[in-house]
């Protein structure tokens, strides 16, 4: 453990960065769960689509070297918007095709879960077989997007202790917190948000108040999808690579984060994301990175044993405070 102190700083920074990405993806799980009581398994692919949309923008704009200043801000805004649209659109479509018919027929959640798993597989393969070869021109079998353009200069800006901080670290954490605050405002401070919360808390009563449930569900998917789109962009900026399966790993972690924080609870998702990112990162120092997933799940089980509804408690219902 002599090198523990040497690794602690960078591990914390890395943990916060990856935790931010988990948190943003977790928001989608948590919102859909809050409203529909459905584990939207295909949300991981919604995230992946966001990443690919970002690659598309970078290639289209023709980024070949790191940019800075206003150009960077402009480019990032454009990318985020496109990715939010792509992911949000995918999420909407998913709701329409995979969940709406089941909801209308009052199917069991088990059926919905299977539909979700099916949709997840379908989207994953679609990305692999159609999007990568035909949109990005990668040859069959090559599933990684190669030669990812570098958008952000990655030389450290400054150091805190022995932890070098890069621009992408800052952007990721700041963007995640901003998106989180915006969403929180939206859900807790607007009419649309009240509709969402009312539906989550008591759908029948919500109808009696004149809330259009279908619209609320669509909005929920759209918002969750858009958050995942942002997460996709941040992921791409951070790791600069992407393949058709990234969503699976990130998705499971994000869902774990959502449950950890208290599923259905927006702030819980943020907290859960950070906790999970840090736990993974720190535990890697002691146990080795190959055990990080095991530690993440063990922490989840431990938390649930003592707080059966997650750290912050469950759902949009009591999440107001």
């Amino acid at each position, binding site marked *: 453990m002599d090198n523990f102190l040497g690794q602690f700083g960078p591990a914390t920074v890395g943990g916060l960065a990856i935790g931010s990405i988990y948190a943003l993806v977790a928001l989608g799980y948590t919102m859909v769960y809050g409203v529909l009581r459905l584990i939207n398994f295909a949300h991981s692919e919604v995230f992946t689509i966001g990443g690919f949309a970002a690659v598309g923008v970078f290639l289209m704009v023709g980024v070949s070297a790191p940019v800075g200043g206003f150009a960077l801000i402009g480019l990032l805004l454009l990318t985020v918007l496109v990715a939010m649209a792509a992911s949000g659109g995918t999420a909407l479509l998913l709701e329409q095709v995979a969940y709406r018919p089941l909801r209308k027929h009052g199917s069991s959640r088990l059926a919905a879960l299977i539909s979700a798993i099916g949709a997840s597989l379908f989207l994953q393969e679609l990305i692999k077989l159609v999007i990568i070869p035909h949109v990005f021109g990668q040859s069959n079998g090559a599933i990684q997007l190669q030669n990812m353009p570098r958008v952000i200069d990655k030389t450290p800006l400054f150091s805190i202790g022995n932890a070098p901080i890069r621009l992408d670290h800052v952007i990721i954490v700041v963007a995640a917190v901003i998106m989180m605050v915006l969403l929180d405002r939206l859900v807790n401070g607007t*009419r649309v948000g*009240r*509709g969402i*919360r*009312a539906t989550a*808390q*008591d759908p*029948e*009563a*919500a*109808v*009696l*108040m*004149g*809330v*259009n*449930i279908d619209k609320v569900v669509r909005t929920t998917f759209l918002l969750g999808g858009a958050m995942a789109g942002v997460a996709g962009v941040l992921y791409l900026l951070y790791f600069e690579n992407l393949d058709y399966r990234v969503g699976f790993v990130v998705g499971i972690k994000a869902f774990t984060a959502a449950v950890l924080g208290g599923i259905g609870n927006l702030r819980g998702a943020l907290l859960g994301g950070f906790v999970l990112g840090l736990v993974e990162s720190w535990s890697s120092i002691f146990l080795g990175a190959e055990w990080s997933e095991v530690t993440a799940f063990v922490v989840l089980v431990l938390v649930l044993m003592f707080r059966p509804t997650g750290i912050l408690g469950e*759902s*949009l*219902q*009591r*999440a*107001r405070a």
Partner: protein
Amino acid sequence: MLLEVRDIHVHYGKIAALKGVTLEVEEGEIVTLIGANGAGKTTTLKSISGLRPLTSGRIVFDGTDISKLQGHKRVLAGIGQAPEGRGIFPGMTVQENLLMGAYARKGTFREELDEVYELFPRLSERRTQFGGTMSGGEQQMLAIGRALMTNPKVLLLDEPSMGLAPMLVAQIFEIVREINQRGTTVLLVEQNAMQALQLAHRAYVLESGRVVKAADASGLLDDPEVRAAYLGGDLGVD
């Protein structure tokens, strides 16, 4: 005629919950539906407010057929309901709950809010408290107040006395009378038949999904069959 329900059938899966219910509510009336548990009272209300689909039959409100209108649109048309079990949004404050009542409409709702707070001074005291943390009686008041915020032409009340102490029940019923006197039509579902009949103008008796009796409330109070079935052992306390 404000509300007409014509021969509606409703099913839960394959089980028939309503087997042809017909009833009418005139403007300005208080009409009550009484009957045993499972007779179909709540289902009738849910069908009127669009929470349950009809298998057959028609519902006409204010001159238009609303049988196929989506539930949330019926609120705008003027049907307000305080549902069974109150349906309070537990994670919203009292004020937010009330504002949810006005969700479908645009504008500020100062006056409506003031009116509800005037009817239920208790809610006014607790406007920042969370719905989920209130007592049963307060929740019932909130549910009725919230339904009033939808600005209804007809107010559907589902078992407002359930689980409440007799004194509170009397209080709630008094407020219902007050609401009616201010011009809102009321369709009341109650197990507490005695008090409901004392309050209402007219009443329908439901038995296993069918209307078996329809008469003036006062008439039913004296009906020996009704007395035996619904008023005998059912004097208020649940």
